[in-house]
Protein backbone atom coordinates (compact mmCIF):
# COMPACT_ATOMS: atom_id res chain seq x y z
CA UNK A 1 0.00 0.00 0.00
CA UNK A 2 2.97 2.28 0.47
CA UNK A 3 3.14 2.30 -3.31
CA UNK A 4 -0.07 4.31 -3.41
CA UNK A 5 1.35 6.75 -0.89
CA UNK A 6 4.50 7.06 -2.98
CA UNK A 7 2.42 7.65 -6.09
CA UNK A 8 0.49 10.43 -4.39
CA UNK A 9 3.75 11.93 -3.20
CA UNK A 10 5.03 11.72 -6.77
CA UNK A 11 1.99 13.63 -8.01
CA UNK A 12 2.26 16.32 -5.37
CA UNK A 13 6.01 16.71 -5.85
CA UNK A 14 6.48 20.21 -7.22
CA UNK A 15 9.37 19.04 -9.37
CA UNK A 16 6.95 17.09 -11.55
CA UNK A 17 4.90 20.17 -12.37
CA UNK A 18 5.59 22.86 -14.91
CA UNK A 19 7.78 22.63 -18.00
CA UNK A 20 7.42 20.48 -21.10
CA UNK A 21 7.04 17.13 -19.36
CA UNK A 22 5.19 18.50 -16.34
CA UNK A 23 1.95 17.03 -15.05
CA UNK A 24 -0.04 20.19 -15.87
CA UNK A 25 1.25 20.14 -19.43
CA UNK A 26 0.44 16.45 -19.84
CA UNK A 27 -3.07 16.91 -18.46
CA UNK A 28 -3.68 19.74 -20.90
CA UNK A 29 -2.42 17.61 -23.81
CA UNK A 30 -4.56 14.72 -22.67
CA UNK A 31 -7.67 16.88 -22.51
CA UNK A 32 -6.98 18.47 -25.88
CA UNK A 33 -6.60 15.09 -27.59
CA UNK A 34 -9.76 13.84 -25.89
CA UNK A 35 -11.86 16.83 -26.90
CA UNK A 36 -10.47 16.92 -30.42
CA UNK A 37 -11.23 13.22 -30.93
CA UNK A 38 -14.77 13.44 -29.53
CA UNK A 39 -15.49 16.64 -31.47
CA UNK A 40 -14.24 15.21 -34.76
CA UNK A 41 -16.18 12.00 -34.25
CA UNK A 42 -19.29 14.00 -33.29
CA UNK A 43 -19.09 15.97 -36.53
CA UNK A 44 -19.60 12.71 -38.40
CA UNK A 45 -21.63 10.62 -36.01
CA UNK A 46 -24.24 13.06 -34.71
CA UNK A 47 -25.71 14.20 -38.06
CA UNK A 48 -25.72 10.60 -39.27
CA UNK A 49 -27.36 9.39 -36.07
CA UNK A 50 -30.00 12.12 -36.17
CA UNK A 51 -30.77 11.29 -39.78
CA UNK A 52 -31.17 7.60 -39.01
CA UNK A 53 -33.24 8.30 -35.94
CA UNK A 54 -35.49 10.69 -37.81
CA UNK A 55 -36.02 8.70 -40.97
CA UNK A 56 -35.67 5.26 -39.43
CA UNK A 57 -33.75 4.27 -42.55
CA UNK A 58 -30.45 2.46 -42.77
CA UNK A 59 -30.59 1.61 -39.11
CA UNK A 60 -29.62 -2.05 -39.46
CA UNK A 61 -26.67 -1.32 -41.73
CA UNK A 62 -25.32 1.44 -39.55
CA UNK A 63 -25.84 -0.47 -36.31
CA UNK A 64 -23.97 -3.42 -37.73
CA UNK A 65 -21.21 -1.12 -38.93
CA UNK A 66 -20.93 0.59 -35.55
CA UNK A 67 -20.80 -2.81 -33.86
CA UNK A 68 -17.96 -3.85 -36.14
CA UNK A 69 -16.07 -0.63 -35.42
CA UNK A 70 -16.55 -1.28 -31.72
CA UNK A 71 -14.83 -4.64 -32.11
CA UNK A 72 -11.75 -3.16 -33.78
CA UNK A 73 -8.93 -3.19 -31.25
CA UNK A 74 -7.72 0.38 -30.87
CA UNK A 75 -4.14 -0.84 -30.57
CA UNK A 76 -4.38 -2.46 -34.01
CA UNK A 77 -5.81 0.63 -35.58
CA UNK A 78 -3.15 2.73 -33.90
CA UNK A 79 -0.25 0.63 -35.17
CA UNK A 80 -1.63 0.48 -38.72
CA UNK A 81 -2.29 4.20 -38.83
CA UNK A 82 1.09 4.84 -37.23
CA UNK A 83 2.93 2.90 -39.93
CA UNK A 84 1.01 4.83 -42.57
CA UNK A 85 1.20 8.31 -41.09
CA UNK A 86 4.40 8.27 -39.03
CA UNK A 87 4.89 9.41 -35.47
CA UNK A 88 3.00 12.27 -33.93
CA UNK A 89 -0.54 12.86 -32.83
CA UNK A 90 -2.33 12.22 -36.16
CA UNK A 91 -2.50 8.42 -35.92
CA UNK A 92 -3.64 8.27 -32.26
CA UNK A 93 -6.18 11.01 -32.92
CA UNK A 94 -7.74 9.12 -35.82
CA UNK A 95 -7.81 5.89 -33.80
CA UNK A 96 -9.60 7.70 -30.98
CA UNK A 97 -12.10 9.19 -33.42
CA UNK A 98 -12.96 5.66 -34.51
CA UNK A 99 -13.31 4.68 -30.86
CA UNK A 100 -15.73 7.51 -30.10
CA UNK A 101 -17.85 7.01 -33.21
CA UNK A 102 -20.11 4.05 -32.25
CA UNK A 103 -21.20 5.49 -28.87
CA UNK A 104 -21.97 8.88 -30.38
CA UNK A 105 -23.92 7.34 -33.24
CA UNK A 106 -25.90 5.02 -30.96
CA UNK A 107 -26.69 7.88 -28.59
CA UNK A 108 -27.90 10.08 -31.44
CA UNK A 109 -30.31 7.66 -33.06
CA UNK A 110 -31.48 6.16 -29.79
CA UNK A 111 -32.16 9.70 -28.54
CA UNK A 112 -34.35 10.49 -31.51
CA UNK A 113 -36.10 7.14 -31.27
CA UNK A 114 -36.71 7.73 -27.57
CA UNK A 115 -38.64 10.90 -28.27
CA UNK A 116 -42.31 10.43 -27.44
CA UNK A 117 -44.01 9.35 -30.67
CA UNK A 118 -47.22 11.01 -29.52
CA UNK A 119 -45.46 14.33 -29.25
CA UNK A 120 -43.86 13.87 -32.66
CA UNK A 121 -47.16 12.99 -34.29
CA UNK A 122 -48.85 15.93 -32.61
CA UNK A 123 -46.14 18.27 -33.87
CA UNK A 124 -46.50 16.86 -37.37
CA UNK A 125 -50.27 17.39 -37.20
CA UNK A 126 -49.59 21.00 -36.24
CA UNK A 127 -47.86 21.38 -39.59
CA UNK A 128 -44.20 21.41 -38.57
CA UNK A 129 -41.69 20.71 -41.32
CA UNK A 130 -39.39 17.70 -40.98
CA UNK A 131 -36.53 20.01 -40.03
CA UNK A 132 -38.65 21.71 -37.37
CA UNK A 133 -39.74 18.29 -36.09
CA UNK A 134 -36.14 17.26 -35.69
CA UNK A 135 -34.78 20.43 -34.15
CA UNK A 136 -37.76 21.51 -32.03
CA UNK A 137 -39.26 18.22 -30.93
CA UNK A 138 -37.06 15.18 -31.39
CA UNK A 139 -33.69 16.60 -30.42
CA UNK A 140 -34.94 18.41 -27.30
CA UNK A 141 -36.87 15.33 -26.20
CA UNK A 142 -33.94 12.99 -26.84
CA UNK A 143 -31.26 15.38 -25.65
CA UNK A 144 -30.34 13.49 -22.50
CA UNK A 145 -29.84 10.25 -24.42
CA UNK A 146 -27.76 12.06 -27.03
CA UNK A 147 -25.65 13.68 -24.33
CA UNK A 148 -25.43 10.23 -22.71
CA UNK A 149 -23.80 9.00 -25.91
CA UNK A 150 -21.33 11.88 -25.83
CA UNK A 151 -20.63 11.08 -22.20
CA UNK A 152 -19.91 7.41 -22.94
CA UNK A 153 -17.67 8.36 -25.87
CA UNK A 154 -15.76 10.91 -23.82
CA UNK A 155 -15.14 8.41 -21.05
CA UNK A 156 -13.83 5.81 -23.48
CA UNK A 157 -11.61 8.29 -25.26
CA UNK A 158 -10.12 9.91 -22.16
CA UNK A 159 -9.17 6.49 -20.84
CA UNK A 160 -7.81 5.20 -24.13
CA UNK A 161 -5.96 8.42 -24.97
CA UNK A 162 -3.17 6.92 -22.85
CA UNK A 163 -2.29 4.88 -25.95
CA UNK A 164 -1.33 8.07 -27.76
CA UNK A 165 1.98 7.89 -25.91
CA UNK A 166 2.74 4.67 -27.81
CA UNK A 167 3.90 6.74 -30.78
CA UNK A 168 3.86 10.36 -29.71
CA UNK A 169 5.07 12.59 -26.93
CA UNK A 170 1.54 13.28 -25.79
CA UNK A 171 -0.63 12.97 -22.74
CA UNK A 172 -0.66 11.20 -19.42
CA UNK A 173 0.05 7.86 -21.08
CA UNK A 174 3.68 8.95 -21.16
CA UNK A 175 3.96 8.31 -17.42
CA UNK A 176 2.43 4.86 -17.86
CA UNK A 177 4.75 3.69 -20.61
CA UNK A 178 7.84 5.29 -19.15
CA UNK A 179 7.04 3.81 -15.75
CA UNK A 180 6.13 0.39 -17.08
CA UNK A 181 9.26 0.04 -19.13
CA UNK A 182 11.72 1.23 -16.55
CA UNK A 183 10.09 -0.61 -13.62
CA UNK A 184 9.29 2.76 -12.08
CA UNK A 185 5.97 1.59 -10.65
CA UNK A 186 5.51 4.76 -8.62
CA UNK A 187 5.53 6.89 -11.75
CA UNK A 188 3.29 4.40 -13.50
CA UNK A 189 0.77 4.34 -10.69
CA UNK A 190 0.88 8.10 -10.43
CA UNK A 191 0.03 8.29 -14.12
CA UNK A 192 -2.79 5.79 -13.67
CA UNK A 193 -4.25 7.79 -10.77
CA UNK A 194 -4.06 11.00 -12.77
CA UNK A 195 -5.89 9.49 -15.75
CA UNK A 196 -8.53 7.95 -13.50
CA UNK A 197 -9.07 11.24 -11.69
CA UNK A 198 -9.33 13.11 -14.97
CA UNK A 199 -11.77 10.57 -16.35
CA UNK A 200 -13.87 10.76 -13.21
CA UNK A 201 -13.95 14.53 -13.28
CA UNK A 202 -14.98 14.58 -16.93
CA UNK A 203 -17.63 11.96 -16.31
CA UNK A 204 -19.13 13.90 -13.40
CA UNK A 205 -19.25 17.03 -15.55
CA UNK A 206 -20.90 15.14 -18.38
CA UNK A 207 -23.36 13.55 -15.97
CA UNK A 208 -24.40 16.99 -14.74
CA UNK A 209 -24.77 18.11 -18.35
CA UNK A 210 -26.87 15.06 -19.06
CA UNK A 211 -29.16 15.83 -16.13
CA UNK A 212 -29.50 19.42 -17.25
CA UNK A 213 -30.49 18.35 -20.75
CA UNK A 214 -33.23 16.03 -19.52
CA UNK A 215 -36.57 17.37 -20.81
CA UNK A 216 -38.58 18.59 -17.87
CA UNK A 217 -41.92 17.53 -19.25
CA UNK A 218 -40.87 13.98 -19.89
CA UNK A 219 -41.59 11.26 -17.42
CA UNK A 220 -38.24 10.44 -15.89
CA UNK A 221 -37.61 6.73 -16.41
CA UNK A 222 -37.29 4.85 -13.16
Amino acid at each position, binding site marked *: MTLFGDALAWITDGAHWGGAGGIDHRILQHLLVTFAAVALAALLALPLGLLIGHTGRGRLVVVALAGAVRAVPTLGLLTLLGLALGIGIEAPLLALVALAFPSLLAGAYAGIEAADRGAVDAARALGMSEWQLLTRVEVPLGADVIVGGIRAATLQVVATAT*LAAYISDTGLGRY*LFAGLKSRDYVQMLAGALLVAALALLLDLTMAALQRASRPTTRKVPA
Partner: protein
Amino acid sequence: MTWVQANRDYVLDMLLQHVRLSVPAILISVLVAVLLGRIAWRWPRAGTVVLGTASLLYSVPALPLLIVIPVLLGIPLRSGLTLVVALAVYGTALLAGTAADAFRSVDERVREAAEAMGYSRAGLFWRVDLPLAVPVLLSGVRVITVSTVSLVTIGALVGIPSLGNLLTDGFQRDIRAEIVTGVVATMLLAVALDGLLVATGRLVTPWRGNVATGVTT
Protein backbone atom coordinates in the same frame (compact mmCIF):
# COMPACT_ATOMS: atom_id res chain seq x y z
CA MET B 1 -2.80 -14.34 -47.07
CA THR B 2 0.62 -15.90 -47.52
CA TRP B 3 1.60 -14.58 -44.13
CA VAL B 4 -1.43 -16.21 -42.53
CA GLN B 5 -0.69 -19.51 -44.23
CA ALA B 6 2.91 -19.50 -43.09
CA ASN B 7 1.90 -18.63 -39.53
CA ARG B 8 -1.33 -20.55 -39.15
CA ASP B 9 -0.32 -22.32 -35.95
CA TYR B 10 0.84 -19.13 -34.32
CA VAL B 11 -2.36 -17.28 -35.20
CA LEU B 12 -4.50 -20.17 -33.95
CA ASP B 13 -2.46 -20.39 -30.77
CA MET B 14 -2.91 -16.69 -30.08
CA LEU B 15 -6.62 -16.98 -30.93
CA LEU B 16 -6.92 -19.74 -28.35
CA GLN B 17 -5.14 -17.62 -25.75
CA HIS B 18 -7.45 -14.79 -26.63
CA VAL B 19 -10.51 -16.97 -26.04
CA ARG B 20 -9.09 -18.22 -22.77
CA LEU B 21 -8.62 -14.70 -21.51
CA SER B 22 -11.83 -13.14 -22.78
CA VAL B 23 -14.42 -15.84 -22.11
CA PRO B 24 -13.74 -16.26 -18.36
CA ALA B 25 -13.64 -12.49 -17.99
CA ILE B 26 -17.02 -12.16 -19.68
CA LEU B 27 -18.57 -14.96 -17.63
CA ILE B 28 -17.28 -13.57 -14.34
CA SER B 29 -18.58 -10.13 -15.33
CA VAL B 30 -22.04 -11.54 -15.99
CA LEU B 31 -22.20 -13.46 -12.71
CA VAL B 32 -20.97 -10.57 -10.56
CA ALA B 33 -23.03 -7.97 -12.42
CA VAL B 34 -26.23 -10.02 -12.03
CA LEU B 35 -25.53 -10.29 -8.32
CA LEU B 36 -24.86 -6.56 -7.99
CA GLY B 37 -27.82 -5.70 -10.20
CA ARG B 38 -30.03 -7.85 -8.00
CA ILE B 39 -28.75 -6.11 -4.89
CA ALA B 40 -29.29 -2.71 -6.48
CA TRP B 41 -32.79 -3.70 -7.52
CA ARG B 42 -33.77 -5.06 -4.12
CA TRP B 43 -32.21 -2.38 -1.95
CA PRO B 44 -32.27 0.80 -4.04
CA ARG B 45 -30.33 2.82 -1.50
CA ALA B 46 -27.44 0.34 -1.38
CA GLY B 47 -27.91 0.11 -5.11
CA THR B 48 -27.02 3.75 -5.62
CA VAL B 49 -23.73 3.15 -3.85
CA VAL B 50 -23.02 -0.10 -5.68
CA LEU B 51 -23.81 1.28 -9.12
CA GLY B 52 -21.98 4.50 -8.38
CA THR B 53 -18.86 2.56 -7.43
CA ALA B 54 -19.22 0.45 -10.56
CA SER B 55 -19.33 3.44 -12.87
CA LEU B 56 -16.40 4.91 -10.99
CA LEU B 57 -14.38 1.77 -11.66
CA TYR B 58 -15.27 2.03 -15.31
CA SER B 59 -13.57 5.41 -15.45
CA VAL B 60 -10.22 3.81 -14.58
CA PRO B 61 -8.42 3.29 -17.90
CA ALA B 62 -7.62 -0.27 -18.86
CA LEU B 63 -3.86 0.00 -19.13
CA PRO B 64 -3.39 1.49 -15.64
CA LEU B 65 -5.84 -1.06 -14.29
CA LEU B 66 -3.56 -3.81 -15.61
CA ILE B 67 -0.77 -2.28 -13.63
CA VAL B 68 -2.69 -1.56 -10.43
CA ILE B 69 -4.28 -4.99 -10.07
CA PRO B 70 -1.02 -6.89 -9.54
CA VAL B 71 -0.09 -4.34 -6.88
CA LEU B 72 -3.41 -4.77 -5.09
CA LEU B 73 -3.69 -8.55 -5.38
CA GLY B 74 -0.06 -9.50 -5.24
CA ILE B 75 -0.17 -11.47 -8.49
CA PRO B 76 2.48 -11.16 -11.21
CA LEU B 77 1.89 -8.44 -13.79
CA ARG B 78 2.33 -10.86 -16.66
CA SER B 79 -0.10 -13.43 -15.33
CA GLY B 80 -3.19 -14.08 -17.43
CA LEU B 81 -5.14 -13.74 -14.20
CA THR B 82 -4.25 -10.05 -14.07
CA LEU B 83 -5.91 -9.44 -17.40
CA VAL B 84 -8.93 -11.57 -16.57
CA VAL B 85 -9.46 -9.66 -13.31
CA ALA B 86 -9.02 -6.31 -15.04
CA LEU B 87 -11.46 -7.16 -17.80
CA ALA B 88 -13.92 -8.65 -15.32
CA VAL B 89 -13.83 -5.43 -13.31
CA TYR B 90 -14.52 -3.50 -16.48
CA GLY B 91 -17.26 -5.80 -17.66
CA THR B 92 -18.93 -5.80 -14.26
CA ALA B 93 -18.78 -2.02 -14.03
CA LEU B 94 -20.36 -1.70 -17.44
CA LEU B 95 -22.99 -4.40 -16.90
CA ALA B 96 -24.15 -3.86 -13.31
CA GLY B 97 -26.37 -0.91 -14.23
CA THR B 98 -27.91 -2.84 -17.12
CA ALA B 99 -28.54 -5.79 -14.80
CA ALA B 100 -30.42 -3.57 -12.36
CA ASP B 101 -32.45 -2.19 -15.29
CA ALA B 102 -33.11 -5.73 -16.42
CA PHE B 103 -34.67 -6.68 -13.08
CA ARG B 104 -36.68 -3.48 -13.11
CA SER B 105 -37.99 -4.39 -16.54
CA VAL B 106 -39.75 -7.43 -15.14
CA ASP B 107 -43.47 -6.77 -14.95
CA GLU B 108 -44.48 -6.36 -11.33
CA ARG B 109 -47.80 -8.09 -11.99
CA VAL B 110 -46.07 -11.20 -13.24
CA ARG B 111 -44.00 -11.30 -10.09
CA GLU B 112 -47.07 -10.86 -7.91
CA ALA B 113 -48.85 -13.62 -9.77
CA ALA B 114 -45.91 -15.94 -9.25
CA GLU B 115 -45.80 -15.10 -5.57
CA ALA B 116 -49.50 -15.85 -5.34
CA MET B 117 -48.81 -19.20 -6.99
CA GLY B 118 -46.56 -20.00 -4.07
CA TYR B 119 -43.07 -19.55 -5.53
CA SER B 120 -40.38 -19.40 -2.91
CA ARG B 121 -37.99 -16.46 -2.92
CA ALA B 122 -35.31 -18.50 -4.68
CA GLY B 123 -37.87 -19.91 -7.05
CA LEU B 124 -39.04 -16.43 -7.85
CA PHE B 125 -35.48 -15.40 -8.74
CA TRP B 126 -34.51 -18.44 -10.77
CA ARG B 127 -37.80 -19.14 -12.50
CA VAL B 128 -39.39 -15.73 -12.91
CA ASP B 129 -37.14 -12.72 -12.44
CA LEU B 130 -33.96 -13.98 -14.06
CA PRO B 131 -35.56 -15.51 -17.17
CA LEU B 132 -37.67 -12.43 -17.73
CA ALA B 133 -34.67 -10.17 -17.22
CA VAL B 134 -32.69 -12.02 -19.88
CA PRO B 135 -33.64 -9.88 -22.89
CA VAL B 136 -32.45 -6.61 -21.34
CA LEU B 137 -29.51 -8.31 -19.66
CA LEU B 138 -28.46 -9.86 -22.94
CA SER B 139 -28.20 -6.50 -24.68
CA GLY B 140 -25.67 -5.45 -22.03
CA VAL B 141 -23.79 -8.75 -22.20
CA ARG B 142 -23.41 -8.33 -25.93
CA VAL B 143 -21.82 -4.92 -25.45
CA ILE B 144 -19.31 -6.10 -22.85
CA THR B 145 -18.50 -9.20 -24.92
CA VAL B 146 -17.45 -7.12 -27.88
CA SER B 147 -15.53 -4.62 -25.78
CA THR B 148 -13.81 -7.33 -23.71
CA VAL B 149 -12.63 -9.23 -26.77
CA SER B 150 -11.25 -6.01 -28.20
CA LEU B 151 -9.60 -4.96 -24.93
CA VAL B 152 -7.75 -8.26 -24.44
CA THR B 153 -5.31 -7.07 -27.10
CA ILE B 154 -3.73 -4.48 -24.80
CA GLY B 155 -2.39 -7.37 -22.70
CA ALA B 156 0.32 -7.56 -25.36
CA LEU B 157 1.70 -4.29 -24.02
CA VAL B 158 2.53 -5.89 -20.68
CA GLY B 159 3.47 -9.32 -22.04
CA ILE B 160 0.21 -11.28 -21.73
CA PRO B 161 -0.08 -13.21 -25.01
CA SER B 162 -3.21 -12.84 -27.16
CA LEU B 163 -4.09 -11.75 -30.66
CA GLY B 164 -2.70 -8.42 -29.48
CA ASN B 165 0.78 -9.90 -30.01
CA LEU B 166 0.11 -9.90 -33.74
CA LEU B 167 -0.42 -6.16 -33.47
CA THR B 168 2.79 -5.40 -31.58
CA ASP B 169 4.94 -7.92 -33.47
CA GLY B 170 3.62 -6.81 -36.86
CA PHE B 171 4.30 -3.25 -35.82
CA GLN B 172 7.93 -3.99 -34.93
CA ARG B 173 8.62 -6.00 -38.05
CA ASP B 174 6.56 -3.80 -40.34
CA ILE B 175 4.41 -6.72 -41.44
CA ARG B 176 1.09 -5.09 -42.10
CA ALA B 177 -0.50 -8.40 -43.02
CA GLU B 178 0.18 -9.51 -39.45
CA ILE B 179 -1.48 -6.44 -37.92
CA VAL B 180 -4.47 -6.75 -40.22
CA THR B 181 -4.72 -10.44 -39.32
CA GLY B 182 -4.74 -9.51 -35.65
CA VAL B 183 -7.43 -6.89 -36.15
CA VAL B 184 -9.61 -9.10 -38.33
CA ALA B 185 -9.24 -12.16 -36.09
CA THR B 186 -10.21 -10.08 -33.05
CA MET B 187 -13.27 -8.77 -34.84
CA LEU B 188 -14.27 -12.23 -36.04
CA LEU B 189 -13.97 -13.61 -32.53
CA ALA B 190 -16.16 -10.78 -31.23
CA VAL B 191 -18.74 -11.42 -33.93
CA ALA B 192 -18.68 -15.18 -33.27
CA LEU B 193 -19.18 -14.77 -29.53
CA ASP B 194 -21.90 -12.22 -30.18
CA GLY B 195 -23.68 -14.66 -32.47
CA LEU B 196 -23.37 -17.33 -29.79
CA LEU B 197 -24.99 -14.96 -27.31
CA VAL B 198 -27.89 -14.18 -29.63
CA ALA B 199 -28.41 -17.91 -30.14
CA THR B 200 -28.22 -18.56 -26.41
CA GLY B 201 -30.68 -15.74 -25.87
CA ARG B 202 -33.15 -17.41 -28.21
CA LEU B 203 -32.59 -20.74 -26.49
CA VAL B 204 -33.28 -19.45 -22.99
CA THR B 205 -36.21 -17.22 -23.94
CA PRO B 206 -38.19 -19.40 -26.34
CA TRP B 207 -41.44 -17.64 -25.47
CA ARG B 208 -40.15 -14.60 -27.33
CA GLY B 209 -40.33 -16.49 -30.59
CA ASN B 210 -38.10 -15.04 -33.25
CA VAL B 211 -38.20 -11.50 -32.02
CA ALA B 212 -34.83 -9.93 -32.59
CA THR B 213 -33.05 -9.76 -29.25
CA GLY B 214 -30.82 -7.08 -27.99
CA VAL B 215 -32.83 -3.98 -28.68
CA THR B 216 -33.59 -2.06 -25.55
CA THR B 217 -35.49 1.12 -25.27
